[in-house]
């Protein structure tokens, strides 16, 4: 769509800029400030340049946490995106089923994150939890407090359980917005269900899938409360994700410098990947578009 050229549009954006910048810029600059200084106490600080950055970049445990984080976010997206779209495709288009499905889907999203972790502790307990007792009852030994693999399965299952509804809600609303005429045309052409999905529904979902992918990537990369409450980062360090390690570092040390440098690097990684995803999704498949 052609847009009007008019710099006065800035006036409409200004309130957003002011309100977001107010909470964004000063804290960001303060953290950048921490990250280049050694702070001994109030008024006693020394400029140390990139020392903290170097320290953080050569931290082996941080790099391990980073790979774990990539694996976790990768798995989360791998399950949540296709599953969310499938659910959206299966959801009823009209009738009382619509309200019921929408409200039920929203329920996991509305529970505070620390509570989700707590409920899953009991839910997965082998002795008194529904999931833990069922799985162990089937003869499969399952205990996320001792086996790293089980811990991973539990944390990923919790993430997929918690957040797939977000993708499904967005994809469902996107599907509802496709004009009926497209499907009639497809029927006349004798298109198969797969063709309809591949050439009509999927391209039309580009926008909502872009925002769901970005949201899920950012939030899963920053995940803290749920896995921390459930596993505490263990067993060992098996589920110590990047933010769990960051908090360990920030709380365990008197000096905020290294943790601040860590935060800035963390932020830049998310920024880089979000931007790559955004660019890729803007351009992918535009060749097919009519």
């Amino acid at each position, binding site marked *: 769509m052609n847009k009007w050229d008019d710099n006065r549009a800035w006036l409409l954006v200004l309130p957003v800029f002011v309100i977001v910048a107010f909470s*964004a810029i000063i804290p960001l600059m303060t953290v950048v400030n921490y990250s280049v200084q050694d702070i001994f106490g109030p008024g006693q600080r020394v400029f140390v340049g990139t020392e903290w950055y170097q320290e953080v970049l050569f931290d082996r445990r941080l790099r391990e946490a980073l790979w774990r984080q990539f694996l976790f976010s990768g798995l989360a997206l791998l399950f949540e995106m296709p599953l969310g779209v499938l659910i959206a495709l299966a959801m009823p288009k009209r009738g009382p089923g619509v309200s019921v499905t929408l409200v039920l889907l929203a329920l996991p999203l509305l529970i*505070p994150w*620390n509570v989700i972790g707590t409920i899953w502790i009991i839910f997965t307990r082998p002795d008194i939890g529904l999931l833990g007792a069922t799985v162990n009852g089937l003869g499969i030994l399952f205990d996320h407090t001792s086996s790293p693999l089980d811990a991973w399965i539990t944390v990923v299952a919790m993430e997929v359980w918690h957040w797939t509804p977000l993708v499904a809600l967005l994809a469902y*609303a996107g599907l509802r917005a496709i004009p009926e005429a497209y499907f009639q045309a497809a029927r006349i052409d004798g298109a198969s269900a797969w063709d309809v999905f591949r050439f009509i529904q999927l391209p039309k979902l580009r926008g909502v899938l872009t925002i769901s992918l970005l949201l899920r990537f950012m939030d899963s990369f920053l995940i803290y409360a749920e896995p921390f409450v459930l596993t505490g980062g263990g067993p060992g360090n098996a589920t110590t994700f990047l933010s769990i390690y960051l908090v360990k570092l920030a709380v365990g040390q008197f000096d905020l410098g290294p943790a601040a440098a860590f935060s800035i690097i963390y932020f830049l990684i998310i920024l880089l990947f979000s931007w790559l995803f955004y660019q890729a999704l803007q351009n992918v498949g535009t060749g097919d578009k009519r």
Partner: protein
Amino acid sequence: MIIRKRTVGLILYLAILLLPIYWMLNMSLRSNADIMGVFSLYPTDPNFDNYIKIFTDASWYSGYINSIIYVSLNTVISLSVALPAAYAFSRYRFLGDKHMFFWLLTNRMAPPAVFLLPFFQLYSTIGLIDTYLAVALAHTLFNVPLAVWILEGFMSGVPREIDETAYIDGYGFPRFFVTVFLPLIRSGVGVTAFFCFMFSWVELLLARTLTTTDAKPIAAIMTRTVSATGLDWGLLAAAGMLTIVPGALVIYFVRNYMAKGFAMGRV
């Protein structure tokens, strides 16, 4: 036949989705000793003690009131600043528009842990600590960008001819926006309101940092169920069940809007 299979799959999925929530409900109706002692598929001796405690203890129920106040405040602020901005992004090309649009989203990308201290200092300096406004303002950091992104999608779906016709008919921008344009994107506003409500409702770190007593959110009060004797799981589960209720009401009210064309322009 295909539709049958899909429906069965959907029902199966929803059943699995509800299992942890059912377990929470089950826990909320049992005493702590009962939960820790025996495995039971349903409460054998259901009682509402946990709920009664929450509804009669002011330190508990005030948490819900606090959360509802700052979440509503945040939703109103986020929507009112995001609406004109989303219109600008969907209709105009202006200096730095694309950069500005992506910059907004970058505000959701910072790991909160180290940012909490500067946030606390910033809001202390302006004297807003422990007020609803502080939490509502801090939450705009992640809700305003989301609101702008979602609303821009809806607005881009409205043909520009509508704007042009209205301006030719002599509408000024404010009147056109409120009486013509907003009704057209009602659905977008409803959906955006739900997402703002949801993300502000479940956010804990900022809300806890910026409040001490008067505006303390329910999610922070729930961490108090940890005591010397361990966690009171039943009480926590009951509180968890109650945190679902306000949001479920919100989505119930916007459900029709969600079913009718969400993100019209972005699809």
